[in-house]
């Protein structure tokens, strides 16, 4: 056999004349299809989309949660003005007790975005720092006042006062380590004056169920938020109660508890037990599509 025969034979093999053009067109069609469905490296881009969606959901959840807290707090003050204030000296401590108990256990998941929450016990001479619990919080020029989320309503004077005073109820967030004892606030969501001559009440005492449902029981009456199983009983009140609260919409307070829904509510029971009956459910929202 001559050495060039095989190469020559292979070179003479007939192939489709338009193979290159047909292939190129096919490839471009595939590329166009991929671009319609997202970039070719689809796994990565899908993850990015998922992350963006998750972020949006989380932020929306928090915005609604903070708004619910604010409405709730106003409702509590309004109620307490007619409450047990006239009783005795013991009454303030009695009212304050639940808040101090809960303050040791922050609302589930709430500590991530709201880690400044409580009543101002001291204010610095310049008025730019205040103490909440054991934490000194400093307000700087960089501190944002009010939520700047797209769905957030403009903060009212009542809910977000300019001056930090002893007794005011504040909620906010710092990206710094709260265990250091002194932080600079990134955001202050609320700075509300307490009801006159009333013991200050921490708003978070009324919201200790807050997060995304990860499991729902077979009967649909219990759901899991974080590590907490919450059961809805016939005694569980639904919606936000208070003179300024709007009627709960179907959208914000769905009847059915589903995995992925964002819920906020309150239980008077000890959340550290891992299983509680809900006293009230404020919101039960389907995640954003």
């Amino acid at each position, binding site marked *: *056999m*001559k*050495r060039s*025969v*095989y*190469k*020559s*034979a*292979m070179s*003479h*093999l*007939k*192939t*489709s004349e338009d*193979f*290159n053009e047909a*292939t*190129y067109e*096919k*490839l*471009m069609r*595939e*590329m166009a299809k*991929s*671009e319609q469905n997202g970039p*070719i*490296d689809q796994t990565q881009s899908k993850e990015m989309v998922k992350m963006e969606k998750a972020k949006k959901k989380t932020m929306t959840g928090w915005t609604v949660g903070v708004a619910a807290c604010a409405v709730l707090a106003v409702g509590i003050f309004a109620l307490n003005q007619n409450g047990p204030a006239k009783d005795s000296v013991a009454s303030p401590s009695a009212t304050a007790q639940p808040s101090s108990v809960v303050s040791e256990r922050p609302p589930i998941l709430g500590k991530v975005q709201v880690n400044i929450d409580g009543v101002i016990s001291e204010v610095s001479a310049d008025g730019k720092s205040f103490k909440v619990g054991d934490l000194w919080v400093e307000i700087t020029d960089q501190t944002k006042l009010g939520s700047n989320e797209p769905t957030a309503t403009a903060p009212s004077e009542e809910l977000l006062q300019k001056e930090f005073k002893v007794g005011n109820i504040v909620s906010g967030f710092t990206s710094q380590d709260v265990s250091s004892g002194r932080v600079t606030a990134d955001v202050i969501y609320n700075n509300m004056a307490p009801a006159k001559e009333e013991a200050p009440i921490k708003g978070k005492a009324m919201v200790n169920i807050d997060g995304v449902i990860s499991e729902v029981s077979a009967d649909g009456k219990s759901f899991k938020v974080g590590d907490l199983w919450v059961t809805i009983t016939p005694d569980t009140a639904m919606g936000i109660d208070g003179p300024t609260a709007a009627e709960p919409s179907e959208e914000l307070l769905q009847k059915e508890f589903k995995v992925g829904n964002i819920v906020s509510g309150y239980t008077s029971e000890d959340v550290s037990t891992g299983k509680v009956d809900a006293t009230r459910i404020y919101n039960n929202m389907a995640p954003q599509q």
Partner: protein
Amino acid sequence: MYNSFELNESVRRALDRYSQSLIKIAFAYLKNMADAEEVAQDVFLAYLQKRPVFENNEHEKAWLIRTTINKSKNMLKAGWFRSRNPVPENLSYLPREENEVLQAVLALDKKYRIPIHLHYYEGYSIQEIADILQAKPATVGTWLARGRMLLKEKIGGAEDEAFSI
């Protein structure tokens, strides 16, 4: 990474440069031109989707050849491919001698056929074939020697004549 324009350009360039090589390798594997062209198209599609980055043209060609061989293997293993009885490729249009030699090579076991193709058609050295086939050079040398011997038995040839580069 490429942008779309660069990718288009690199794919078009690869098509112009290597499509015939890839079709011929796939043909040597599958013995059927339609299947060979389908495999070659799949290889370019993989090129488009994976967007591999190459050190140089040789690296690019080696990647394409390896992908062609892998895709040809996969096609051979596919149930639909095994179960069919294709009409043998009509090579009668080739000159008699070329037809004879090509038929002889295609009749070899594929473990001899592919190294012979890569050596005598593509001009790869034993070391390069070993890299492409991910085998030891000594093994490739043995395949080539045995393939040559089998071919000589079939189609004859002078004692000192060999399938050298």
